[in-house]
């Protein structure tokens, strides 16, 4: 009898574990549906334009600005940097499929060999180091310029982030999701506080962007920064804005967060580099 009770308890525990088990595809659909219902008049592809999709005045200003976009200099610099050979004569193009053209939509990727998420920023630095060059700052202008160029060559291509059948990949996705929804900092804000609960609302002078499609426009020129910023810079700034001590650029948490946020935006087009107030 005791055995039967124990077996029943074990089976119930298993059922609970399955019920709790992540289904990223279903979660991504629910994530998208939340925003489609919250903003029924916004074209799904337009979410990648952040606050401009939600605020008519800002959109008009942005459309004017796009005639002479503020990221143009960075884009040109990125094109030159990407083409410039390393000291050993090789190029960034040698590190990536399709010579690094139109690959942005496939990053971040889960690297099964190393069991971790590889972002585009990390892949660019690993390419440098593999060719005897020093890594560059994840928050600096050169990284922003390089990622701006790579993103530009992918414009219009839908995000295509894969979660392979590997429990470590699922764990990375889950960790990213947990980070996204976890409140932190003295202000007790999570990423979701701004980008799920309050997109379209003002926080001081800013109109908060929707979480859906938020990375499709990266990197971005921000007037607030007076320059270009990478995804790393954006995450670090978010930590500071909620009065938390920022994590390190490309820390496991940030890479997993990028994995989760990119995955739930699968199907939406790359629009980077972008410009924001």
């Amino acid at each position, binding site marked *: 009898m005791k055995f039967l009770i124990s077996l029943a308890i074990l089976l119930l525990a298993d059922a609970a574990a399955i019920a709790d088990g992540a289904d990223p595809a279903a979660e991504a659909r*629910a994530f998208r549906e939340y925003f489609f219902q919250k903003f029924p008049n916004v074209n799904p592809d337009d979410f990648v334009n952040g606050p401009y999709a939600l605020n008519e005045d800002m959109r008009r200003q942005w459309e004017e600005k796009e005639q002479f976009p503020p990221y143009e200099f960075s884009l040109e610099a990125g094109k030159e940097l990407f083409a410039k050979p390393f000291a050993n004569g090789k190029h960034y193009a040698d590190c990536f499929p399709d010579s690094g053209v139109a690959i942005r939509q496939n990053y971040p990727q889960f690297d099964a060999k190393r069991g971790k998420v590889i972002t585009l920023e990390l892949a660019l630095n690993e390419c440098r180091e593999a060719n005897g060059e020093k890594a560059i700052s994840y928050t600096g202008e050169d990284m922003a310029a390089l990622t701006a160029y790579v993103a530009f060559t992918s414009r219009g291509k839908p995000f295509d982030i894969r979660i392979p059948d590997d429990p470590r990949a699922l764990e990375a996705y889950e960790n990213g999701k947990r980070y996204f929804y976890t*409140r*932190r900092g003295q202000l007790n804000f999570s990423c979701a506080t701004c980008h799920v609960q309050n997109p379209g609302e003002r926080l001081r002078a800013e109109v908060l962007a929707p979480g859906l499609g938020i990375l499709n426009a990266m990197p971005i020129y921000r007037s607030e920064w007076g320059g270009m910023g990478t995804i790393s810079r954006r995450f670090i700034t978010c930590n500071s804005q909620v009065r938390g001590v920022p994590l390190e650029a490309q820390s496991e948490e940030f890479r997993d967060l990028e994995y989760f946020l990119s995955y739930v935006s699968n199907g939406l087009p790359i629009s980077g580099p972008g410009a924001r107030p």
Partner: protein
Amino acid sequence: MTRLSKTSIGLFGLIVAIFAGSAAFAASTEADFKQAYAAADAAEKEAGRLRNQWLATEAALAEARKAAESSDFDRAVAAAKEAEALAKASIFQATSENEAWKNLEIRP
């Protein structure tokens, strides 16, 4: 001397004694600072282990060190205690969010 004057002098003496006593009681020593700082630093390290430190805690710790360098141990102890309270709040936040984050999640 009138009875009223004697009472006034007595009262004055009592007030002086209270102030002198409380001043002596309030004056913090370097040892007090070290004790308060060690407690705050330990709590902040725990918050760091939980990957959830706050900028205000770091600022209060820096303020405590700065005050101690200028031998203002009252201010140093007060800042260290504030840092400890902030660090403990960030630890509470991190541990309670272990489960609470699920309340915000968009589920299928």
